[in-house]
Every structure is written in C-alpha cells, then in structure tokens.
C-alpha cells in the first residue's frame, strides 16, 4: 500500500474496515504462498524433465549393461529392468506432487482474483495489488 496522492487526500469514502484489513492480509499471505509454490513447481518441472529424458535414454540402452542409477548420493549399478522399475516409481512420485501443487496454485490464484475484484472495487487506485 502506498501513501495517497495529493488529489485523493480529501477522499473520505475509503474507510478501512476490519473485513477489508482481513482481505488485504489474506491477499498478501496468498501472494507469498503462491510464490513459494511457483519456485517448487519450477524445481519439480526440471526433475520431471530429467526423468523423462532418462526414460528415453533407457529405451535405447543395452540390456546387458548395468545402468548407473542415482539413489541418495550414490550411483547403483542396476540391471536394466530393475532400473526401469525404479524410474517408473520415481516418475509417478514426481508426477503426483507436481499435479497436487498445480491444483493448489490454481485454487490460490482463483481466490486472489476474487479478493482483487473486491479490494479494487472498494479502494480503486488507492491500493495497489499488482507487481
């Protein structure tokens, strides 16, 4: 929130009520929350892409050659079928986290949009809710 401009100093109509304050609070809270979700999604997306690449690579891999698969900090020399199983599991795990985060991001965005409408409706240009 910024200080009022000169010509708005006389504008009495924008009394802040407790409800407004709560809306502003929620908005700012959701704003921080969505930013953290966005960073998490970014990381997950990269992991997901890496696993997708990996699954492409493994399709071309030699059956008899063991695959170096990273678990924790070390690489395990796994036979190909075993590696594929692990990969599948890892992919499923990431996929489910990714979609649950996407869902909550969408929910937050919807809520923020509603709050924006209400708050801009009441305070007009005396409040700034955008980046």
């Amino acid at each position, binding site marked *: 929130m910024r200080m*009022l401009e000169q010509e708005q*100093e006389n504008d009495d109509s924008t009394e802040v009520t407790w409800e407004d304050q709560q809306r502003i609070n929620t908005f700012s809270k959701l704003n921080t929350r969505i930013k953290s979700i966005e960073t998490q999604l970014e990381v997950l997306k990269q992991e997901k892409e890496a696993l997708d690449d990996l699954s492409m690579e493994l399709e071309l891999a030699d059956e008899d050659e063991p695959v170096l698969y990273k678990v924790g*900090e070390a690489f395990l020399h796994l036979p190909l079928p075993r590696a594929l199983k692990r990969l599948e599991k890892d992919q499923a795990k990431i996929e489910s986290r990714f979609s649950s985060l996407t869902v909550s991001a969408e929910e937050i965005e919807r809520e923020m949009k509603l709050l924006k409408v209400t708050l801009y409706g009441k305070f007009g240009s005396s409040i700034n809710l955008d980046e």
Partner: protein
Amino acid sequence: MSSSLGKPLTEEKNPRGIPKAPFIEDVEKYLGGPDAEVEEPLKNFQDAIAKYRYMDSNLAQRRVGLEEKIPDIKKTLSMVEFLRDRREGKTSTEDDDDLDIDEDGAEGSQSKPLKTTFELNDTLFAEAELEDTDTVYLWLGANVMLSYKIPAAIELLKSKLEGAEATLASVIEDLEFLREQLTMMEVNMARVYNWDVKRRKENRLKAEAAGKSAEG
C-alpha cells in the same frame, strides 16, 4: 483507547508467541483526539515493523535450513529403503518385482554384491561393492555415527523426516502470520500518516479562511 497509546502490539499472540498487530478502527480515536500527536505512534509502528522484519528474517533462515535438511533425510531414507527391498527380495520371491531380478541374475544374484559408484569428493568418484547387509550406519551429527538394523534405521529416518516436515510447516505458518502482521502495520502507518496530512490541510484551509474573513 488511550491506554493502547505507545503500545503498538496487542496482548494477543499466535501459538508460537508472536504478538498480533492491532487493527485501527478509527484513526482519530486511536490517536486520542483531533489534535493528537502522530510522531510518537508512527515511531512505535516503525519499531514494531522492524521487530516483525527481524523475526521474519530469522524464520526465513530457519526455513532455508529445513528445506535443505529435508531432501537430505529423504535421500538417506530412499537409500536405506533400497537396501531393505534388496534384502527382502532375496528372502522372498512372492513379488513379481523380485522375480525380475532373479531371472536377470539367474544364478549369480544371490551372492553377487551390489556394485555402486559413489562420490569420494567433488568430481571424484570411486566404486564400491556392497555386501548383503542388515546394518547401516547413520550419521547423527556432532561427530557421532551409530549402527542401526535396517528397519530401525528406516523408523528413525521416517520420524526425523516427519519432525522436520512438521517444523517446516509451523515455520511457514509463522512466516505467513508475520506477513499478515506486517501488512497490517503498513496499513496502519499509511492510515495514520494520511490522517495527519488531511488534518494539516484542513487546519491550513481553516486558518486561511479565518485570515480572509478577518481581512474582509
């Protein structure tokens, strides 16, 4: 209301003892009248904001620490779980999963040690062979390492992971709470400030009007 003057924080607190910021319903009432001083309350608000900011940066740091710790625990856990599955795979062949492996290594798999490549140092890797084992060593910190049977290790790691995740959740909750209090304080500042600007302007207009009527 005058009792709350000079006390910008309320008695109410969140579960971790962070005080709540007050909401000002009526600026004039809060300050104590149309001629009240604004310097003092504004300074108090600023102090309170500084305190909240300080807590905010502390908690943000804790959050970063936890967010680093959790993946570490997860990595260790997935390795220990791998060791468990591998061991169980050898004793029971009910699972299709395990049949796969047995087919693969036909005769050898029972005794063949697992080959791993691990990081010895940055960019330096070495190979190691893991004998079948039911014991792992967990680094507990403070230069202590303890040996655990695999199930006990998994239990310990899981409880550590849950603990860390719960702490992280409450830290995030506190951070969000702080954000709300900061927003409230900023709104309070802006409103008291604007109220003061408006009052000054009105007083000036009144004085001008009085001056004019005195002239005329």
